[in-house]
């Protein structure tokens, strides 16, 4: 009992320090807030893109790339932490990791009974879940850097982009709020599901599946298959980007009295975790629909 109260005290002190930092940052933010709301909202949909104009495959979004590597580093760090103290009697972290994996594996096994396809599907779904969940959470917890890009047309008619880094006014840009990230994963899931379908049923039965229930339904079936990655990726993109824009607008309305991370408690933690779960569950469902 005494140990418990001690821990609670420590948590209390940490929470107070956290609050003090946040209130200071909030006051600084409120002091230097742009007076015109258009300055805040106008930059929302602009992206920071680096690369030569016109060459589509060389143009990248540096914020997404950097944040992706941060997410990967966090996942590797946690995996090493668990691996170091790996034992038969699980520690807290190991128990957490194991229960998470078991939870996903149960879903995979209930929808794909065949062990040969259940294991790779589990690996894919678990990787997607971990990556998306961490990337949604990391953009929700910590006040970070946001990049503001504004397009200005100068006197000679050329478009000039101004890049401005703003500290602590918004949260980190999530990799999942970039459609390219989501579309990559959705297309990957689509290709894997088709490959598994061919492997499980044979190419003849797979092609025949498009003619069911009647041959006239062929275009409908093809469109139905192609619509899967589109809806899969746009769902995650819309949720996270919409959440980010709403947080930015709301924190402007309340003049940074509530800092963005507090508002992100809903959009980042609740909605973000649910979307990560939905994304991986739908990946399992798409693969299962092709395999069986």
């Amino acid at each position, binding site marked *: 009992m005494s140990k418990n109260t001690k821990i609670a005290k420590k948590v209390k002190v940490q929470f107070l320090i956290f609050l003090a930092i946040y209130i200071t940052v909030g006051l600084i933010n409120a002091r230097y807030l742009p007076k015109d709301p258009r300055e805040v909202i106008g930059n*929302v*949909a*602009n992206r920071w893109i680096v690369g030569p104009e016109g060459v589509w495959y060389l143009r990248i979004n540096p914020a997404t790339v950097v944040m992706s590597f941060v997410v990967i580093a966090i996942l590797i760090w946690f995996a090493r932490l668990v691996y170091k103290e790996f034992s038969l009697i699980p520690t807290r972290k190991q128990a957490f990791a194991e229960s998470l994996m078991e939870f996903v594996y149960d879903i995979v096994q209930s929808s794909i009974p065949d062990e040969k396809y259940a294991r790779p599907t589990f690996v894919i779904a678990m990787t997607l879940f971990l990556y998306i969940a961490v990337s949604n959470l990391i953009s929700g917890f910590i006040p970070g850097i946001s990049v503001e890009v504004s397009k200005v047309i100068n006197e000679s008619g050329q478009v000039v982009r101004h890049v401005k880094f703003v500290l602590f006014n918004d949260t980190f840009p999530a990799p999942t709020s970039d459609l390219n990230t989501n579309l990559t994963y959705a297309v990957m899931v689509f290709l894997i599901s088709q490959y598994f379908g061919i492997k499980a049923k044979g190419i003849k039965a797979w092609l025949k599946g498009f003619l069911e229930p009647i041959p006239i339904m062929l275009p409908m079936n093809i469109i139905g298959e192609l619509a899967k990655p589109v*809806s899969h990726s*746009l*769902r995650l*993109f*819309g*949720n996270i*980007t*919409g959440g980010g*824009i709403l947080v930015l607008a709301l924190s402007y309305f309340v003049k940074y009295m509530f800092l963005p991370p507090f508002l992100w408690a809903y959009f980042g933690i609740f909605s973000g975790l*649910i*979307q990560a*779960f*939905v994304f991986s*569950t*739908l990946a399992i469902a798409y693969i299962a629909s092709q395999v069986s």
Partner: protein
Amino acid sequence: MDQESVKILAEAIITAGKAIGAGLCMGLGAIGPGVGEGHVGQGAMEAIARQPELTNVITTRMLLADAIAETTGIYSLVITFLILFAL
């Protein structure tokens, strides 16, 4: 009317059209998901009332079905962003 005021009028009409279009898109697009999620929630509540021991399973399935019913609403959100920021 001279050239300058025609330009200003055209910009005003564009802004008004954007605002009306975005509002209509989001407002009408939110009806479907609202009805759909209401149905899902109703079904889940009835199922939980009938079989309280299955609450965990039903809640996970309900969240999944909610997210799928939400899709059209998210589409209209994306299109609203396109209208407001990209056009």
